[in-house]
């Protein structure tokens, strides 16, 4: 049940994109506002038709400008979460979900309550959107998008209209929810952090054109993609498992490279996490430093050094199976005299890892 998209257009915004999303896979369309990523999403949903385009889901053609196939949105089995949720204001949460079910649904009320429970909204089924918080509205929108048993789930900047604390929680919930989803998921976002911690694969869009696509790790190390996203977005993902919460408000994790001490993370011991470590926050030292305030000193080995035109270089440090990236000045590299193969210590302040740099790596209850 994979989703294949091809779109070409010259006006009103140029488009040149081809991508494919497999069932159960989460693909992030990343780009600045006005880059055309939302237009691509609207093309899939049938809300927009470029001059030349093809959209196929599971062998079923939704749009093919060559053969003249163009199903209207209501005949495409698609679930959409809009940026501002677009809930029906005159309906309760449950009615919003039921509205997307179609007439053949057998026990719509029970099904709606099951979906609302799935997005952690049990007990709020009879509230109208105006009586729900932004995060709760977002969950209703998600339940409504799933109610149609869509063949593709489309999320248009779904986390941008909620506050930061809610966003972190929703990130975790999306990861947990994915255990129940076996359709392709497309997430449109301008937030590289969100894309890197949530997506399996990324497509970077600039002026309607695909600059880079591939697995999240591939795209995040592609210089062209990084130039478009900004070099300050350069970061590595370090898998780690929660071991304990300390009395002084920190969380200790175990990574392949050894223990990590991070600001408090709301996750039970044993939870597997993805920790996004920003390359510009990492300090390198040849000797193991002493008398330093930074809590995380990770020993590793220089794998390779990538230098561009700017004053900075990117040092890839192998730590066990994983990799940490450090973006340091060319001057510092010369002072240290680092070369591939050298032993090095990567130093990371606990406080340099923000809470939304952390997301669950998988669904802890394994698809209940």
């Amino acid at each position, binding site marked *: 049940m994979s989703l294949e998209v091809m779109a070409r257009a010259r006006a009103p915004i140029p488009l040149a994109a081809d991508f494919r999303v497999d069932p159960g896979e989460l693909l992030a369309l990343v780009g600045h506002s006005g880059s055309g990523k939302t237009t691509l999403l609207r093309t899939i949903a049938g809300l927009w038709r470029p001059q030349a385009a093809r959209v196929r889901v599971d062998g079923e053609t939704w749009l093919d400008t060559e053969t003249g196939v163009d199903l209207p949105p*209501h005949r495409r089995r698609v679930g*959409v979460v*809009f940026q501002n949720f677009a809930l029906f204001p*005159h309906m309760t949460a449950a009615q919003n979900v039921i*509205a997307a079910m*179609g007439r053949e649904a057998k026990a719509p009320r029970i099904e709606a309550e099951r979906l609302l429970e799935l997005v952690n909204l049990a007990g709020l089924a009879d509230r109208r959107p105006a009586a729900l918080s932004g995060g709760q509205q977002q969950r209703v929108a998600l339940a*409504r*998008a799933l109610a149609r048993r869509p063949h593709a789930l489309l999320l248009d900047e779904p986390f941008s209209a909620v506050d930061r604390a809610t966003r972190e929680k929703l990130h975790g919930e999306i990861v947990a929810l994915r255990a129940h989803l076996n359709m392709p998921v497309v997430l449109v976002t301008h937030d590289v952090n969100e894309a890197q911690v949530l997506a399996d694969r990324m497509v970077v869009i600039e002026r309607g054109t695909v600059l880079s696509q591939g697995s999240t790790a591939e795209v995040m190390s592609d210089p062209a993609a990084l130039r478009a996203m900004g070099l300050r977005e350069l970061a590595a993902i370090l898998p780690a498992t929660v071991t304990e919460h300390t009395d002084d408000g920190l969380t200790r994790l175990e990574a392949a490279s050894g223990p990590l001490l991070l600001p408090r993370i709301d996750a039970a011991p044993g939870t597997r996490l993805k920790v996004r470590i920003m390359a510009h926050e990492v300090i390198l030292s040849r000797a193991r430093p002493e008398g330093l305030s930074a809590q995380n000193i990770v020993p590793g080995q220089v794998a390779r050094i990538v230098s561009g035109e700017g004053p900075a270089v990117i040092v890839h440090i192998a730590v066990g199976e994983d990799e940490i990236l450090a973006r340091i000045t060319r001057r510092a590299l010369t002072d240290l005299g680092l070369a591939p193969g050298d032993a090095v210590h990567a130093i990371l302040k606990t406080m340099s890892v923000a809470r939304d740099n952390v997301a669950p790596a998988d669904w802890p209850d394994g698809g209940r």
Partner: protein
Amino acid sequence: MDWDALKLSLSLAAWTVAILLPVSVFAGRALAYRRFSGKGFVEALVMLPLVLPPTVFGFYLLVAFGRNSPIGQAWQDIFGHQLVFSFEGLVLASVIFNLPFAIQPAQRGFEAVPRDVREAAACCGMSPLAALWRVELPLAWPGVMTAMVLTFAHTLGEFGIVLMVGGAIPGETRTVAIAIYDRVQAFDMEAAGLMAAVLVAISLFTIGLTYALSARVGRRLS
């Protein structure tokens, strides 16, 4: 008190509202959502009855409905009586001169439904008709209702066009507004005053009802 005139007025208003309700919904929706060339011209045309003096508008309708016009001729052939100076002619004139009152508020009502909410309806699998019935109409309802109340009240009060197209035939085209004028001409101030008071009461009641209903809709949405 001329009860026949009042009954006639209410009947005329009811027919006008009944005919204009679907026109209000579909034309208002089309003008709110569709983009087409000449849209500005259509909008201006709809508003024309608002700015023309009723006697001028009535004069043209009289000419258009008259026995020598194609419309009047066809009516005469089918129904065996003339269109002008008949109740049916009055209803037709009333429908036309109420177009701005019926369409404009409904258009504003439909415009108030956010685009992403309409798109969400389609993405929830609703056909355009289902989306109209389940999402757009419930949200645009205050506008449509305002349109109908304005149409009703305006029909009760219209004088110039009714006189031009209908004359003042008792039981056929003499509405209460014309009856009041007749009574005043006959120096029967008491009857005129009574009928005027009844019209004021009916108008107040309809406006009050609108406010009460739209307040209820407002509460439902917040």
